[in-house]
């Protein structure tokens, strides 16, 4: 149970309990605000009945032609509200916006190859490992690029896994 609404600047002052989690990165202000200024529909927060921030999702839409897609930049849930499918709800919302408003072909995300719990969760949400990105995280750890096809990609071409891993400089977008 939650109220999911657009993320706003004041939420930056309220998300400490979520961001103090060691896996949740606290970006600089221009990062958050660029997302808010450019893709406000892709940045949502879930609030508890006591008005606490339970978690949030931030993302964007980018690409050209058949690679026009939604991208999940971060999705995170406070420890107190985990194991309640909140991340799923937030992901579904972003998928819905990518699908219905922006008519994207797929949604993708990057995850640390070592973050097994997260990978499992994304797989449950029907994301497949599309490719491995070598040493993506600070030149040390590999990332997995996971994708889920949307209704516009009727033949599900966007999620056919690549046979070989790629390096960060081969990526199409930052």
């Amino acid at each position, binding site marked *: 149970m*939650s109220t999911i609404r657009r993320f706003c600047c004041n939420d930056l002052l*309220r998300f400490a309990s979520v961001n103090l989690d060691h896996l949740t990165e606290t970006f600089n202000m221009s990062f958050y605000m660029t997302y808010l*200024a450019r893709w406000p529909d892709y940045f949502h927060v879930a609030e508890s009945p*006591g*008005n606490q921030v339970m978690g949030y999702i931030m993302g964007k839409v980018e690409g050209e032609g058949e690679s026009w897609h939604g991208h999940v930049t971060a999705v995170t849930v406070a420890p107190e509200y985990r194991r*309640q499918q909140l991340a799923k709800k937030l992901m579904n919302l972003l998928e819905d916006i990518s699908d219905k*408003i922006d008519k994207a072909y797929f949604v993708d995300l990057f995850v640390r190859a070592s973050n097994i719990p997260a990978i499992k969760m994304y797989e449950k949400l029907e994301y497949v490992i599309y490719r491995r990105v070598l040493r993506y995280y600070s030149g040390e750890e590999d990332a997995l690029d996971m994708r889920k096809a949307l209704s516009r990609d009727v033949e599900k071409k966007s999620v056919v896994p690549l046979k070989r891993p790629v390096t960060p400089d081969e990526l199409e977008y930052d």
Partner: protein
Amino acid sequence: MASKYGYGGGIPERRVRPIWDAIDSRQFKNALKLTSTLVSKNPDIPYALALKGLILERMGKLDEAFSVCITAKEMLFSSSSILIDDLTLSTLQIVFQRLDHLDVATSCYEYACGKFPNNVELMMGLFNCYVREYSFVKQQQIAMKMYKIVGEERFLLWAVCSFQLQVFCGSGEDKLLLLAEGLLKKHIATHNLHEPEALSVYISLLEYQSKFGEALEILSGKLGSLIVIEVDKLRIQGRLLARAGDYVLAADIFQRVLELCPDDWECFQNYLSCLIGDGSNWSKGAQNNSIHLPNSGDCKNLHLTDEMFDSRISRASDFASKLAEKASSDSIRCPYLASLEIERRKLIYGRGDMDKLIEVMMQYFCRFGHLPCFASDVETFLEVLTGDKKNELLDKLVESCGAPVTAPKKLLGQSITIFKVRELIGDMFTVSATDIEGFAVQMADLYCKNLPLSKDLDIQESVHGEDLLSMACNILVQLFWRTNHIGYLLEAIMILEFGLTIRRHVSQYKILLLHLYSHWCALPLAYDWYKSLDVKNILLETVSHHILPQMLTYPLWNDLSDLLKDYLKFMDAHFRESADLTFLAYRHRNYSKVIEFVQFKERLQRSSQYLLAKIESPILHLKQNADSIEKEEGVLENLKCGTHFLELSSEIGSKSLTFNEDMQLRPWWTPTYDKNYLLGPFEGVSYYPRENMQFQIKQMEANTLKKIERRSLVPRMIYLSIQSAALSVKYNIEANGSLPEHQVPSELRILLERYANILGFSFHDAIEMVSDFPKGHSSSEVASPNLIEWMNFAVFFNAWSLNSHEKGASHRDINKTSSWQLVNSFLEKQIVEKFRSMRPLLSSPGSDLPVVVQMVTEPLAWHILVIQSCVRSSLPTGKKKKKGGASEQSNSQLSYEIRDSILSVYRIIEQVITWLKEQLQKPVDEGLDMILSSLVTKVPNEGPGRVFHVIETCVASLNDTELGDRIAGSLRCWHPADVGRKLISGQRTVLSELLKICESKIKSLQTLKLQI
């Protein structure tokens, strides 16, 4: 930067590209070389100069950069034949902005727009300049011009936003919104609207003017189709209807939203409010500025008959049941919580039954009691129960726990929930010490026994039952508060350190530990845990209150300096870039974000913590350099002799400051940063109920305002005191020209008066207060919370008296000479008394050591500066001395007073040093044995050590197969003695740092002694 390639000033791209490449790869020297060639070949093209300026700025050659760009600007202005393009202007703009000369950048664009009146690209640049300057009126004017030229929707919306900004963030009147509305209407009539954000701006304009009917009409008309997602539209509709007072229709709309999104809690609350006609949520001004909105429990009179109320409530109940039936999974809790909300509302309106609420709560518990968020879910509902009913509920919860549950994880979850409810209702503060100690033992036991459940978890995942250790810590700290037995405090630390050994990422434990170590004067450990939280960026604003207030009172100056620097750097960087991000929102047509960004920037600019850090940072510099008057004067010069802060202090009253700290994660014993229950006697449940929190926050806010106001006077008072002391030495006056002599005493007098007023006293009463202190007449209760301030007052008062001929200076029995004695004895009495009453840090947590640190590093340090100033001025400088009988006499009297004061201060510091050395000489092992022995239970089932014993048993009994490799491996690293050793070494670091400061002061006093 790649987008900047082009034909700036007509220079071909191929000539510019290598320069940008060099800039992008930070090869500035190379870039400068290439640009110099470019400038020499194109001496009359300003773009080349602008590039040079940009590179110089990057290289840190700020003056050169500015002068090169000014030349470029003059070139632009001087010749009509020169090509003016946006690339040149925007390059200049970047440099001028970085050099804090926004006005010059703006003037370039203004000139260009004047020269090419219909060039929209240049006008956009100018608009951007006005956005950077927050000139809303000019923004609006230029946007309107662009709109008139090209007729594009976006420019109209830029103008509309600028109108809104004038009203919301400037001094613009509401009627501007009417103007904006008219413009939009006209545009819609001819061009329609094409962007969803434009529609939402239009609706917000109408809504702000309470034109709900019109807004609704637009939403349901053709324009409404711009909002693609149905529920989004319905939510706006519901809100508008409710605000218009049409609750019946609004309730229907909210019902439709709930049918589509059954888990939308806010929507259910709106639905219920509308159904029973409670409009309190919708009245204007219902939104406040607080970060955490309290749940509204306002009891408004409803205009419903009992029958109507009952029938509406039963409609809501039916609907909630329907939603619950449809809810397919247990992750949808809203429909169930809805039943609780219905019962709560009934109670609020005097039509409820607590037993019914308890019954529904029990049903909710059976279904969701195992979830970690159960307690916070139901917190609001507990608040409407009486004390007896709360206890009745607790008994029922205990009874039903585990009944139909077989899964161990669920059982564990339910047990934790019951402990949490106990905490929430304040039960832990009313039962006996033995009972709560029993709970803590149970918690630790439950945690340990359930560790095998976490056997296969990834290190990233929380261990099952993590909350138990925090709750056990809460109890142990309370037991420490009740009994003053350090064993409990150590035990609290031990279990958290133990938990962090098992999984090192539990921020909740780290925060608790941070506060426990702070309380026990082991600030370096507290700071280490704080650092491990990786607090950065915006979290600096919301989380650093956990450590900053303590750091300000401790001698860990390098760490404090880093903390302040990082925080101020973050805030200032945001203020610099915020306008560019606002322009980004304009460009991407997300107009609602424009207003939001500007308001957010203002909110951060008015942050109380930001202001405090801005003042404390220079005060820290002053403290660090106080041993040398020359260095101190250097610092003061950089601070414009403290004048800037003076202005700030005067503005405080008129500013509404914001408090953005997130207090939610603070431990119960220190709910705000100026309150620590552990420093006073046990007050039991009196800190409950939680409504007190609002009051405490208000009090903290008022205290902070006063503190900022007071602290910002200090740099100037130090400066004036140094001046006054110098002037007092008659035969060697050498005014430095910054202030006419006679103004020093009068300004210092005004500031002393203000300082006294902030402390709640008149000038004369304040003098009386400090003069009575050494005689023991003053009530120490009056002074104790502001002891440092009183000591500062005495020091600055003495400095002022040296030069004042005013009557107040010889108030009562105080005269020029005796003000020295007054300050000597005041400082000596307070400082010596303080540390003499102090027991060793290890056996007495909550020590007054930070107060002693402040006394030595602030009032005492300022007083030494006054002495230094007198001594320096009395030294022969090679100039001919003025001779005169009377002044000779008064100066010899003065030098006697100064010598006396040096000796007095010397004595004080010597005594502090002796005490510190004594403390530091104590063997570490002795201390370690002492604290570890406090964990040995002397009486079975009583006293500290029982919880610790549970942990020790757990470590010894659980085996690797049960725990899995990871947890078992961590347990092998658990060494309680190391925790004790760390604690002792943390305290010793603090003592050593203070010792260093004192020794340096002694050195400077020795020099002074020789000089006089």
